[in-house]
């Protein structure tokens, strides 16, 4: 299989002419690859997206998560790149850049998922790659209220630490993971730091220095005191 892949590489990437790229053949390459993936995964794929000259995304159903990994690995995506989570809730705290004397602004709290959509607040995203061709696919999966999903440890050994990190940062469980201890935080830490509703204290305890603090002339109105 290695030899096959490397031959493919030589055909597609002649080293000397990489700068004279044409859009069309590369799209075909990703489209074909996507067709191969969706064909192999069948009904597990809920949505897919190919961005020309860029990347591929698929969203799979949660119960097919482990088989997705296995299938992709058998399709040549043997390089495990990363696995992480996304919390799609807009931050209720903003950036901490507002005047504390003003009333707190209304914040939009509608959840708006990214590429390939989604139905839940949390998603797990993983990326695997085909070595040599450098084609990669981003796989997303919705995490429902059970906040757990199958582990990829047995498929990609490298997923171990990534799942541990995702577990402690988002509170997403991984069924079948051998050891979901915290990596970074103390074991009795409460809360999940990368969730959007976890405040970043550094931006809350200190007042924002960007508030305009220019005293107006004694005779001026308050409104004119704003900085130019």
């Amino acid at each position, binding site marked *: 299989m290695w030899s096959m892949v490397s031959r493919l590489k030589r055909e597609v990437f002649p080293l000397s002419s990489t700068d004279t790229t044409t859009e069309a053949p590369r799209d075909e390459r990703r489209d074909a690859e996507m067709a191969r993936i969706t064909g192999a995964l069948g009904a597990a794929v809920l949505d897919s997206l190919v961005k020309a000259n860029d990347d591929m995304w698929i969203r799979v159903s949660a119960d097919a998560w482990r088989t997705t990994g296995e299938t992709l690995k058998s399709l040549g995506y*043997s390089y495990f790149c990363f696995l992480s989570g996304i919390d799609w809730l807009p931050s209720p705290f903003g*950036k901490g850049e507002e005047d504390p004397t003003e009333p707190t602004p209304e914040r939009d709290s509608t959840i708006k998922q990214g590429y390939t959509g989604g139905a839940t607040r949390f998603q797990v995203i993983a990326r695997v790659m085909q070595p040599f061709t450098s084609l990669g696919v981003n796989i997303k999966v919705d995490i429902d209220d059970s906040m757990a999903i199958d582990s990829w440890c047995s498929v*990609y050994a490298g997923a171990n630490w990534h799942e541990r990190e995702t577990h402690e940062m988002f509170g997403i469980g991984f069924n079948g993971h051998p050891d979901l201890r915290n990596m970074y935080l103390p074991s009795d830490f409460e809360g999940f*730091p990368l969730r959007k509703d976890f405040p970043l204290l550094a931006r809350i305890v200190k007042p924002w220095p960007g508030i305009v603090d220019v005293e107006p002339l004694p005779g001026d109105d308050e409104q004119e005191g704003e900085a130019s």
Partner: protein
Amino acid sequence: MTMLGDRQQLAYIAAQAADARVNVELETEGMTLNIGPQHPATHGTLRIIARLDGEQVVWAEPSAGYMHRGYEKLTEVRTYPQVTALVNRIDWLGSFANEVPFILAAEKLMGVEAPARAQHIRTILFELSRIANVSLFLGDLGVQLGAVTPVFFAFRDREYVLNLIEAATGGRFHPNFDRIGGLKDDLPAGFIDETRMVMKKLRTFCDQIEDLLFGNEIFQSRTRGIGVIPKDVALQYGLSGANLRASGVDWDLRRDQELPMAWNKADWKVWTHPDGDSFARCWVRLQEVRESTKIVDQLLDTIPSGPVMAKVPKIIKVPEGEAWVSTENPLGEMGYYVVSQGDQGPFRVKIRSASFNNISIVPWLLKGVYVPDIITILASLYFILGDIDR
């Protein structure tokens, strides 16, 4: 090859266990040795919990997180220019290289591309930071294995590279020079000639290190056959960079992936090594420094003239979308998965750093080795603490 390393290790452990069972009355409890968080070999604060039988490791696990700075959370409250200043602290030895993939991802989302001159200079600085990073590895390798001199050579010659980076960007360690749409400024006059001279010095440095360390029989006996990583295991764990190429995988993102950078304008070689042991990893890195000096030399000849900044608005708002860009950083594949929701700052940035994956293979790798080999293996895997913990 695939199973060989694993089987050797398992057999070794099994034999040890059998020995222990025979001498029941002599059987002793294993000793748990904490290597780190403060330990000279864990440049930074990595902690390795090793259970030892004599000096042999029965079980070992790294425990990271003593330097976790929460960059993924911090990026959510920062604008894109501010994130750039932040991310070059991830791998603090090759800092400019950290900025590039993030900027490229943002540029991809915005649909802008840096001018040719900026791409060229970016690539030069990228390779300079690789040299600065990996040359320190070559010196540090000596210290880890007990040779004191190479690290001073490394600091000596790395200083020239840092001076170059400082002259061009203003920052020795944290350039913060890359901008969405190009570079902050053009190169100062005299940079090209200076760089040529420095590259010559770096090549001499590589020769010296090769003579002093790589050719040394003691060094070879310490590193050859130690910590063998087979090809498919390396891929599964997501090892990247020289660690992957030392296992015989001929894959370099600089060559095999198309990015608006200038690597393909130079003629250079991707080195691989079939062995997958510590020596192979170190050797591949040595060759990489040499190739980098070649890349820099060639790119210096062909810098196109023109502006270094594309037309971008002063206040940067990145349109909605998601983008993944990774580059072949000094430590391996460094990538950013940037999710934008049309704000001045990113909605979520997943930082995929090379050392995190590279070091996650350590529990697998350390079974059955001796205490000195822990150091060899850690040194040859080459991690930067900031790159593990982020």
